[in-house]
């Protein structure tokens, strides 16, 4: 809760992996409610997954 998929999506799309780490992304359980509610039907779950992968690759900082 209080994860910010919209911010994660924005940072991931612009490649700003340092800011993403501050958003507590590892708490995401990929439930998909973010993409469900989005009126623009953006692929937010996929962005969150990518963010988690990047954070793991950088050593979970």
């Amino acid at each position, binding site marked *: *809760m*209080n*994860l*910010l998929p919209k*911010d994660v999506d924005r940072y991931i799309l612009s490649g700003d992996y340092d800011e993403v780490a*501050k*958003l*507590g992304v590892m*708490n995401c359980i*990929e*439930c*998909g*409610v973010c*993409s*469900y*509610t*989005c*009126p*623009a*039907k953006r692929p937010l*779950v*996929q962005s969150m*997954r990518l963010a988690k992968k990047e954070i793991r690759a950088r050593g979970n900082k």
Partner: protein
Amino acid sequence: MSKYIVSSSPHISSKSTTQKLMLDVIIALSPATIASVLLYGFYPLFLMVLSVGTAVFCEWAFNLALKKQNSTRDLSAIVTGMIFALCLPPVVPFYVAIVGAAFAIIIVKMLFGGIGRNFANPAATARIFVMLCWAGVMTKFVAPIDLSNGANLFSYFTHAVNINLPDAITTATPLAVIKGAGGNPVEGLSALDMFLGRIGGSAGEVSALAVLIGGLYLTIRRVIDVRIPVIYIGATVVFTAIFYANTGYVGEYVWSGLLSGGLLFGAFFMATDYATSPKSTVAVVIYGVLLGFITVIIRKFGSYPEGVSFAILLMNIVTPLLEKIRPRVFGQPKKDFVLIIKNKRAEREAKKALKSAEGGAND
């Protein structure tokens, strides 16, 4: 054995789409549109047709020119066109509507990345642009059409090209009176007049009743975040009372500032744009209060009689900074913040110790 197709969550999608949200906004804008026709005849409607047509055309042409997918289907260009048209005084020449709508769509919206990426509200920014280009025309307001006087609903069409016709009686808006000589801004106007819209002003702003109906609809349909208009309007009332406390007419200033001018319209339809407003509660409060503050400051100390569009532009630009105020993630212990502060203090002291050690060695 049959093949299973595995896909990612979510496996279903909500019915809400951008198009439906925009349709709700269009419905919410209809009372104000109808009011502008009842008060000023069909010319403001003509301006709106021009504005919407230009907006949709510009978005379509821009997408075509840059070989992008056509995005006009989401109806946001129509909404921008309508909001912009309602910001204009009802007797501006036709080219104002066209140029302003083109500016809103091409420069404020499309050049920055299309819907969701605009740096400020397109309609508010276009209004400022048009005000700077055609200041005289944008500050000429007229009284509503008085059908008993032999005028008819097509009377103001003569203004399409020539603004300086004598048949329009220029009226000072209540805000212009406040800006000018001071004194009672609502001399000769009743609160009912201001509420229904029988005053001078921009086409969509005058009828507080119409704007509030639209705002209520948007709130019920959960399209807008109602905290923003409530906090903005509340802050404006408070600051108006503070800054005009030493005139004899505080009550009248508060009422006229509330019911005339672009405040209600801007608060419900322009300040609530998703791309340019913050979401977390603390950030929303700061956003609303500063909007109110800037509006009143510009109204009182600036040279324009209205501050809403400038306030919205400024706070839209500040919004990315406000978005850095993030809510605490569920499960993140509050202790973390104390730890961070302790660590930072230890770091600072270590650095100081290091510096003084080096300093001592350099003697």
